[in-house]
């Protein structure tokens, strides 16, 4: 138990990756990368590997899935000197309780509906592969209308981040028998990091095999993946928290665990929105909020309803879901909305869109249709940080951001490039900043 407690203390800093080898020499491949925690399948559990990993300050975790002999594997994990087990999937409660009583550190990655927000690490393996995916006919879109849809886990993860006590991991793997383009790895890392979560790095079989064989091209790709992984670990950015003058009052029962839900719909419009879990709804949470969306008012307690009443009396704008409509109950195997439900929440979305219009709720972004963003601020609001993740396979030139408020200094960060200053210029309600080009990630810090 002591070991488990000691480990938990360092858990917050774990940067996890799946590893398909028990050869201690492969650990050399992690030198210079931020990865310090490896998830190993039972075939790769080995005391020699764990010991060498320990010497390199790398934690080793054994992956167990339902249907395997969990109790026996827990014993085997001890023999292999693993730091703990990762339970991928949904396990019987009795087994979980037995493991909880053991001296083994257990990290659960169950289905989304079974996630535990008070666990040392909250996570799941249920996810979409982030990116802009072509339509059935292979075209990006078939009309001169809207933006390409971005498949993302970021809305769901932002809610989980608002709920979870500890770090948030998302552990999906590349689709089987698929060679994943390098940019898609960057997008997977950024998609999680945008929401303050970590993707458990997982290489496609081809890259994994070539990397372990020390193929030159694979090594180069691996170094780039590692550089992008480390990008979001900038310690100066730790002081920034979620920011924006719009709040989405939502919870597990009102669709917060879906991908492609309301948070994502608002997210693609780059409206800075903070998820406020119903159970956290308070006057303090609503401070500085100008506009709120209450997805399902029937889920609110009388006290919570009073909180929103005070919010509107103080001049806040409140939008509620369609009367009589409730979010569908999420099935355990479900991560995206059914078509009919998408059509229903489209009503909410249209109202949100018409209410926000051209209002600046923290930042307005231009030329960012292929991107998602996350606006953060320091507690005193004197510094803002904006992360941008580009999900297209092409760089985007000429991005403009209009920030609310007066700032005199702006710094642009990109992976592998020295930070550079750019001069904010005055606009009607704040300052504008231009970024010449966004490759995969860019970050703006305003002071």
């Amino acid at each position: 138990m002591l070991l488990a407690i000691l480990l938990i203390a360092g858990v917050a800093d774990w940067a996890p990756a799946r590893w398909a080898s028990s050869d201690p020499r492969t650990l050399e491949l992690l030198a210079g990368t931020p990865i310090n925690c490896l998830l190993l399948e039972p075939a790769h559990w080995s005391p020699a590997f764990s010991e060498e990993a320990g010497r390199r300050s790398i934690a080793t975790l054994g992956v167990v899935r339902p249907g395997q002999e969990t109790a026996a594997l827990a014993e085997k994990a001890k023999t292999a000197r693993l730091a703990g087990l990762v339970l991928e999937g949904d396990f019987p409660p009795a087994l979980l309780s037995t493991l909880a009583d053991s001296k083994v550190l257990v990290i659960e990655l169950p289905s989304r509906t079974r996630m535990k927000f008070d666990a040392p690490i909250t996570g799941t393996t249920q996810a979409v592969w982030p990116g802009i995916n072509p339509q059935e006919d292979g075209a990006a879109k078939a009309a001169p209308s809207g933006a390409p849809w971005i498949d993302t886990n970021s809305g769901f993860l932002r809610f989980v981040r608002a709920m979870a006590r500890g770090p948030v991991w998302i552990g999906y793997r590349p689709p089987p028998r698929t060679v994943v383009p390098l940019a898609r790895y960057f997008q997977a890392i950024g998609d999680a990091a945008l929401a303050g979560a970590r993707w458990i790095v997982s290489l496609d079989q081809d890259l994994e095999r070539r990397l372990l064989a020390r193929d030159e091209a694979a090594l180069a790709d691996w170094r780039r993946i590692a550089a992008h992984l480390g990008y979001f670990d900038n310690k100066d950015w730790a002081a920034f928290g979620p920011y924006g003058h719009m709040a989405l009052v939502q919870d597990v029962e009102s669709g917060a665990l879906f991908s492609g839900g309301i948070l994502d719909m608002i997210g693609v419009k780059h409206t800075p929105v903070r998820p406020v879990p119903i159970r956290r709804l308070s006057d303090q949470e609503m401070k500085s909020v100008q506009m709120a969306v209450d997805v399902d008012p029937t889920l609110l307690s009388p006290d919570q309803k009073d909180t929103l009443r005070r919010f509107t009396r103080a001049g806040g704008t409140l939008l509620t879901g369609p009367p009589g409509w409730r979010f569908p109950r999420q099935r355990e195997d479900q991560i995206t909305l059914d078509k009919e439900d998408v059509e229903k929440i489209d009503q909410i979305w249209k109202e949100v869109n018409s209410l926000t219009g051209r209002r600046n709720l923290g930042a307005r972004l231009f030329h960012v249709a292929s991107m998602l963003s996350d606006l953060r601020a320091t507690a005193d609001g004197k510094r803002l940080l904006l992360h941008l993740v580009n999900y297209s396979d092409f760089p985007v030139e000429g991005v403009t951001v209009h920030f609310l408020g007066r700032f005199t200094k702006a710094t642009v960060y990109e992976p592998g490039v020295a930070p550079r200053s750019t001069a904010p210029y005055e606009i009607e309600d704040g300052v504008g900043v231009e970024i010449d080009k966004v490759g995969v990630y860019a970050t703006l810090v305003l002071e």
Partner: protein
Amino acid sequence: MITAASAASARAQSKPLPAAPVSIARCASYDEDQVAVLGKMFDQLGGLDRLVRNKTVTIKLNLTGSPALKFQGKPLGVTHYSHPKMIGAVAHLLGRAGARRIRFVESAWGTAGPLEEYMLDSGWNVRALQSAAPKVEFENTNALGTGKQYSTFKVAGGYIFPAYKLNRAYEDTDVFMSMAKMKDHATCGVTLAMKNIFGITPASIYGDDAGEQEPNESPTKGRVNTCHFGKRQPARLAPSERDPASSREPGHRMPRITAELTAARPIDICLIDGVETVSGGEGPWIRGLKYIRPGVIIAGTNPVSTDVVATAVMGYDPRAPRGVTPFKDCDNTFLLAEGLGVGAADLSRIEVRGVAIAEAMYRFAG
């Protein structure tokens, strides 16, 4: 029924159709000195000064479709939008020639918001454009915009609508310029200076979500149902169609609407950007699009003359009838425009200055 050919012929019998010189220049890249290239072209047309000095110049850009839709991830200006560098150069030249006011206009897709924001969404540096010349303005003509009322533009002897209601910017100007991209077009055969003018129609009145009685000043859709397919009439503020029983086929309607808009709101200066563009259609929503680099710019003062030369440069016969590429699925806009007296679609009557058509030719269907 009036056919394009018979209308042209009737017109031709009454009075000679106008024709004007057209300038062609080679320009391999937007990184070339656009001011020098365009300046020389305008000089070949008699100089910008005489056209714009002390005048308000309104420039209709070609920003078709949502800026969110890109082709192969390329900047919009190298595929299906006007290119910002060329726009900046034009603004600079107009300013230098003494234009009193330069107003960029477009009916921005699906929005009545400021055109500046639409341009920002296209990745353009609006501040640079603003500073390219004194008194540069922007107007989104997809709705009422900064005006108080719409202007009426009557069509003499037109085909589909007897008149159009347009944003006031199209009336409140001395010189009207169409700055188009050189492209194929699904329902008009080619997108050139004339087809670009279809974009002056406000979606507030001609849009799919326009009000039946009153304009919708917050349009979010295109104009397909009213214009392309004639499934509905424009908002009552604007005159309804002449003949609601006429063909609803886009290949019949769109060339006619294009021709009569050009007649109703005459174009004084045409500038066609064929430096980098796409072939196979007008935007990424068309299948079979291809990115190409014809490396050519065409300018003129008569829209039919200019478009006819540009069509020839694209490797097409400008007088081709319906059924022949590029007018495979539509009527020939130029012949329809001839019928309205806009200009002569006759290459033999057009003086080409600068580079010869044969030297500039880039076969779009190639």
